[in-house]
């Protein structure tokens, strides 16, 4: 296929081969009616040929009063490809759990085909609905039409990014709290933080209903809220026996793969030492009819994950081992605000919370936000040298 200048796109064509979905195929499909997509193909082909990116990012774009939701993108090749001289991205706050009516999707597509390239990303890694490619002059009209249909922009820049969640209790029996309700509540409660960037850098909240963590919050969110339970795993011994009778090697495949070896199978009864269970979900995932999370459910709050942008990647660490999550979530909101307060005061420009904790030390951070250090915050004894349990030292004890 040719781009807007009539040139062929042999390098892009390569990306259409194979059994997997191809973004090139989708752009070509839209290019039949969108000059913007034709120029996009041309610029991409040139980029691949010359091994160089021709986008410049950032700048002064947005809608009145908002600091987030629009990611400015301009082409260095605006004379050669004038239709992508501006190619801004718009993030739109997705509904919790990504549930839509077909009417809602048609509404979004109609607005976007009228004002932009027609290309979407459902959904971006932030969780938002992503509209790819429009001009500065179209931003306010798009925003107006979106808000008239009860949609709002999501987060971008140094603000609270659009909170996201797994489908939770709407479709998943393992969900230990109502992720969609919490996500919706936090989104509405922190509207100012979402739309008006006031942080040292971005802050992401992701809500996962169980330790399977389907939204990968432990790797991607500054604050990961992961469902868990604190009583015993529910066991249906007859169903366990049925699995065994059906050929499952429970000793090898279930007990043998338990990370803390807290399970035993004697051929008739499965027993679990719940005090040593680390909620890995392996046994529950493999014997879905026989095992269920406990009944005393809530969530673990972890803090500090990030991808390697300024510094290296971090995974979240436990901050609160167990919290009951029920509306109006005052305890959680209060904790979030204390974290933001300290981060806003002491965070450097472009420093994420995980990096801040590493810089100031977990002990100092916990003291500042008023959280007591507890053993659950470290994976192994003495792993974290910043925490000292002075109360365990008595006079005369030798300090190491």
């Amino acid at each position, binding site marked *: 296929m040719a781009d807007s200048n009539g040139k062929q796109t042999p390098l892009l064509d390569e990306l259409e081969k194979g059994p997997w979905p191809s973004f090139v195929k989708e752009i070509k499909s839209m290019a039949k009616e969108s000059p913007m997509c034709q120029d996009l193909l041309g610029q991409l082909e040139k980029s691949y040929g010359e091994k160089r990116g021709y986008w*410049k990012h*950032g*700048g*002064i*774009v*947005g809608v*009145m*009063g*908002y*600091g*987030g939701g629009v*990611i*400015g993108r*301009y082409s260095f090749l605006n004379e050669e490809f004038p239709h992508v001289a501006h190619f801004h991205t718009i993030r739109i706050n997705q509904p919790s759990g990504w549930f839509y009516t077909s009417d809602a999707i048609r509404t979004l597509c109609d607005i976007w085909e009228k004002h932009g390239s027609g290309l979407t990303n459902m959904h971006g890694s932030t969780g938002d609905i992503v509209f790819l490619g429009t001009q*500065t002059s179209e931003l306010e009209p798009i925003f107006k039409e979106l808000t008239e249909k009860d949609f709002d922009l999501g987060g*971008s*820049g*140094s*603000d609270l990014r659009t909170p996201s969640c797994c489908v939770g209790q709407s479709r998943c029996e393992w969900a230990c709290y109502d992720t969609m309700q919490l996500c919706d509540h936090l989104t509405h409660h922190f509207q*100012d933080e979402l739309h*008006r*960037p*006031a*942080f*040292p*850098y971005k802050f992401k909240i992701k809500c996962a209903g169980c330790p399977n963590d389907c939204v990968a919050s432990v790797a991607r969110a500054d604050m990961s809220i992961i469902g868990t339970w604190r009583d015993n795993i529910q066991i249906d011994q007859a169903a366990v026996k049925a699995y065994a009778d059906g050929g499952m090697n429970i000793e090898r495949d279930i007990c043998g793969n338990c990370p803390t070896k807290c399970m035993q199978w004697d051929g008739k009864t499965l027993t679990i030492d719940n005090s040593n269970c680390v909620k890995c979900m392996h046994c529950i995932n493999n014997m879905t009819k026989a095992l269920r999370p406990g009944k005393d459910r809530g969530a673990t709050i972890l803090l500090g994950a990030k991808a390697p942008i300024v510094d290296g990647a971090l995974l979240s660490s436990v901050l609160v081992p167990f919290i009951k999550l029920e509306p109006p979530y005052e305890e959680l909101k209060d904790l979030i605000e204390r974290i933001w307060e300290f981060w*806003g005061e002491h965070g450097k*420009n*472009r420093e994420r919370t995980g990096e801040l904790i590493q810089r100031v030390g977990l002990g100092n951070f916990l003291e500042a936000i008023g959280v007591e250090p507890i053993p659950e915050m470290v994976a192994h004894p003495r792993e974290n040298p910043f925490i000292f349990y002075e109360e365990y030292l008595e006079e005369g004890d030798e300090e190491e």
Partner: protein
Amino acid sequence: MARTAQEVADAMFELVKEYQGKKKFKAGDLTKAMIEKFGQADCDKQLCKTAIRTLMDSGRCVYTYFGGSFIELPPKEGAEGG
């Protein structure tokens, strides 16, 4: 004497205007500067938050993104950020 959001917004605008082209301010920088200028008793973080909203809604300043989000004067006609 406690300040109003409009007064703080005006002071923020003057600060941004004075340093335009020399220094970029984040919302946190403006908040700290206002608390220092007016004193914690007369100007707290919540008031600064309201003042920033007042300032941005007035259109006298805009948010920009250059590796982080900043508050700046709007571009002059014909000058485009990139």
